[in-house]
């Protein structure tokens, strides 16, 4: 991403060869190779892996982490972090389902869910960007508070969808032409939109600048606090959208939904080559990180690998990936 200007310029001017060359230098290429290796490995190891249906499944399953990952990617690129997304994704289902259960439409429910997410984003953003409290602390706090409030409100029970609106079922479970999950399409559309934002809109470039060097960004006349603030809102709203799809997938507002989601997403973001220091990485990398972890989880399941080995393997993969990144950087 950091070299995207040169990339896009070459893409326009020169042919596909130069484009590939530019791509090859990048971190994303390595990730793409890893993803290909994962897919080849499991295709050979399991007969039912390399099927359209299974791929459609994986893309559907990856979509939730993908959407939330875009938001976390943006906030980490801006040099901050948001670990309240898991709690928020869980919380977003509550207004959605409660509004529908009280006779509201799906649209109204979604508006309610997004309003909640927006509120959380505004509060996180205000505390972290404007009051200057460390964002890890702020979002750790809101992670606790939101989860606690979910439990208080629901009495630690899932709130089932009583209206059984078909549209509500379809957004998270439906498939275009019976194949491609709508949630995967949503994730893809959001990914494209945000990749465009981060690469080609001045605002996206400002986010990179703010994350890369906030002092420089301030001297360049950027509203650093405002930009970070908006990033918190973006992260929260995307977590909310992820929560809406999750809620549809689960047909209810589940009080424990999204527990530990933040770790999964942050792991995918880091695996995708986004530096926690800010300003380095790309949303394309994030998407690859999410896909790699999703395919791994799917493939491990097919090979009947027990959960404990999956956890161990995921941990080792993350350490290896980050260590490799660091090794590359130092060798330069």
């Amino acid at each position: 991403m950091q070299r995207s200007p040169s990339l896009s310029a070459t893409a326009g001017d020169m042919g596909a060869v130069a484009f590939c060359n530019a791509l090859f230098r990048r971190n994303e290429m390595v990730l793409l190779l890893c993803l290909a290796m994962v897919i080849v490995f499991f295709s050979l190891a399991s007969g039912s892996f390399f099927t359209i249906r299974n791929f459609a499944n994986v893309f559907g399953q990856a979509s939730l982490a993908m959407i939330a990952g875009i938001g976390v990617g943006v906030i980490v690129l801006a040099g901050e972090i948001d670990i309240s997304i898991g709690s928020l994704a869980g919380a977003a289902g509550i207004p959605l389902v409660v509004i529908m259960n009280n006779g509201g439409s799906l649209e109204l429910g979604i508006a309610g869910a997004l309003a909640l997410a927006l509120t959380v984003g505004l509060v996180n953003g205000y505390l972290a960007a404007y009051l200057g409290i460390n964002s890890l602390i702020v979002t750790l706090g809101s992670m606790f508070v939101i989860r606690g409030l979910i439990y208080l409100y629901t009495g630690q029970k899932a709130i089932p969808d009583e209206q059984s609106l078909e549209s509500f079922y379809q957004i998270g479970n439906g498939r275009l032409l019976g194949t491609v999950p709508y949630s995967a399409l949503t994730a893809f559309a959001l990914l494209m939109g945000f990749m465009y934002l981060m690469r080609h809109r001045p605002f996206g470039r400002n986010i990179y600048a703010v994350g890369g060097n906030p002092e420089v960004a301030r001297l360049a006349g950027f509203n650093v606090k405002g930009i970070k603030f908006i990033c918190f809102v973006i992260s929260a709203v995307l977590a909310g959208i992820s929560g809406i799809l999750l809620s549809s997938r689960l047909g209810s507002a589940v009080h424990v939904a999204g527990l530990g989601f933040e770790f999964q997403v942050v792991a995918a973001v880091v695996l995708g080559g986004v530096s926690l220091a800010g300003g380095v990485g790309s949303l394309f990398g994030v998407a690859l990180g999410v896909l790699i972890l999703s395919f791994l989880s799917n493939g491990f399941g097919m090979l009947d690998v027990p959960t404990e080995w999956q956890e161990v393997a995921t941990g080792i993969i993350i350490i290896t990936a980050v260590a490799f990144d660091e090794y590359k950087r130092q060798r330069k």
Partner: protein
Amino acid sequence: MPAEPSPIATQDGPALEVIGINKRFPGVVALEDVDLTLEPGKVHALMGENGAGKSTLIKILAGVYRKDSGAIRIGGMDADLRTPRDALRQGIKVVFQEIALISEFTVAENIYLERYPTDRLGSVDWSAIRKDAAALFERIGFDIDPAAKVGDLPVSQQQMVEIARALAHQAKIVVMDEPTSSLTPKEVELLFNVIKRLTGLGIAVLYVTHKLGEVFEIADTVTVLRDGCRISTKPIIEHTQDSLVQDMIGRHIENLFPHSRDMTGGATILSVEGLSTAKLTDINFEARAGEVLGFFGLMGAGRTELAKAIVGFDPIHTGRIVIDGKALLPHDTRTGVALGIGLLSEDRKTEGLMPELSVLHNASLAALRQFTIAGFVDEGRERGAVQQFIDKFRVKTPSLHQEIKYLSGGNQQKVLLARWLMRGLKVIVVDEPTRGIDVGAKSEIFALLDRLAGEGLAVVMMTSEMPELLGLSDRIAVMAGGRITTIINRNEATQEAILNAAIA
């Protein structure tokens, strides 16, 4: 961006007027009733010691700080500079001393950071950025690849990018804060050409510097600040070097470079044999007790790399570093310090200060072992020892327990020097010891280094400042391309010979 910026419509009045500005910080008056007038097409130099208020004034013009009272007029209109954005909108571009670029971005993108050219959809127009940057560089004669990542460039080129940035934004007023501090002589020349081009376009330049020579070369007018007050504003032709220095420090300095020592030197304390690293090739030299060995070299000659290698900070490929007969373990600062070699880094912020720690704990760090009994720190003795140095160096701090980040640059440097002097070294390596330090403090530091040599230390000084090199060194080693090209005695050295060796 048009291909060539058109000259700004010449106004009759001044480009910028600063009228009676005041700024105080808790406990400190930074600026008191300061006036300053910049004329279009003229270079106005702003001089003063560290803490004189220059940086405060620059930051007010940049919209970083807000003035307490007074007025700023731009083109005759009252201007309200609340944020850096306001300043940019009003046509003020400040080139800060510390590189203000996003190192992950390309050169071209950095140049248009504040205002991306966009297409009709509002997307960033990358091809315009690249073409405009290339055109701009060609026009002003910079040889930098616009597609290169800024982080991959040497500091000097980064500085050039900063300056190009001011041009790209068609600023009416360009403020440069110590722009030459990391430039090679050739690049300085290039910079002066660029400044002339700027003034030719009717741009007003405020040139902030410590370097007397530059002022006489480039400035039309000079304003001197001292202790937050304006001392004088005169055309440069009315000044002599002495009169400028006197205005800046309020007293006459007899001799900037004291030479109290017998220059023959003593026994060899440091010897470096066949040292090679990633950036250095076959370095051999010796430093004797009681001498100042100056290392000169242009940007990229390998001075800093050498400094870091001989104290054990950076890894080495081959070679030996021997201090007083004992070999240093390579890439190990601990044996280095134990054997008595220490480095005062050129980069205070990242390699010197412990910003959150107190003056006391910053100063005592390297020598702390001396104040410990069975691992426990005897705080009374520690405080006493540090206080001595604080008094001796006249460090301005409200208390030993003040966090060091709140001190001025000059005072920070004194504390860091104290860190080493308390340790009782045999060899001290100082890298650009006076970078960002004002004339007054400079002479104090020269005196200190001189005295240290007099007390029997070997002082190894890395510098890019010719006067400093010639004024202080007993012997001079010249570096180029990671090698030592020559080592000569000072009495044999001429500027010309040194420069020739540096270009070799």
